[in-house]
């Protein structure tokens, strides 16, 4: 009687995956709304590139590489769990968490650096956008780290949770993609 709801799932489509993709769709709209506002504001008013020139491209470039690499380790974790290789899963999950933390660390350093230089969120419309966009993104990274840590602990208990690793991966990669656009938007142009 007490069958799992999933028991009736149509073979091929897993509820978890459909659910996460719908959630990701709403996330795209969230960051999309922010980015759209930023783009039109920036195109509509002059002098932003002088502001953005105060940002440190090298640091951000390093951070970009960190996040891209974390995507690699995340997907490797999925590959490991697909192959039923728990130790490799743990290793890659651990690496992903570490890289995520590195990203946040570098970002925090960047923030302090900029705020010391007097570029607070109130310093101008560009900085308002800069802190809001990167801050919201950083929160998403943090959320991803929390999820990955949960999975890491579970993997330690030896639970075969390959599906959850895939779902966590989907989210993590989206956060990566968001940064892929934030980087040129805020730093390079």
């Amino acid at each position, binding site marked *: 009687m007490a069958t799992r709801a999933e028991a009736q799932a149509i073979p091929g489509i897993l509820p978890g995956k*459909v659910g996460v*993709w719908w959630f990701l769709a709403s996330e*795209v709209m969230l960051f999309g709304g922010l980015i*759209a506002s930023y783009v039109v504001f920036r*195109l509509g008013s002059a002098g932003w590139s002088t502001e953005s020139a105060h940002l440190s*491209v090298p640091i951000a470039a390093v951070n970009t590489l960190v996040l*891209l690499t974390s995507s690699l380790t995340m*997907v490797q974790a999925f590959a490991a769990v697909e192959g039923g290789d728990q130790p490799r899963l743990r290793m890659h999950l651990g690496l992903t968490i570490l890289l995520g933390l590195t990203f946040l660390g570098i970002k925090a350093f960047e923030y302090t650096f900029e705020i010391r230089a007097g570029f607070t969120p109130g310093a101008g419309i560009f900085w308002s956008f800069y802190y809001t966009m990167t801050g919201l993104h950083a929160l998403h990274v943090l959320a991803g780290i929390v999820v990955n840590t949960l999975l890491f602990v579970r993997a330690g208990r030896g639970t075969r949770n390959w599906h959850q690793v895939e779902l966590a991966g989907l989210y993590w990669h989206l956060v990566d993609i968001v940064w892929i656009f934030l980087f040129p938007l805020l730093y390079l*142009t």
Partner: protein
Amino acid sequence: MASHGGRPNYVAVWAWLVALVILGLAVSFLPGARSMAVALIFATAVAKALLVALNYMHLRSESRLIYAIAIVPVLFVLGLTVALFPDFVFHR
């Protein structure tokens, strides 16, 4: 189970991503037409995003439904951006 079409070579994809990052950086430091550079930079960004979505998020081997869920919001965002142009770009 998710469909197991042969998985892409994740490391190779990562190599491409890094290459594109470096390309974007290089372009941004090149002298010359700004608009051209900007276009190139965002081309690399789109390419990176596609690489991640198709390979790491397995959109390649995904059902049409998932494709739709992924594409529609992107279109809406583009539409929103376009609709915001008259008020915030052309107006000043």
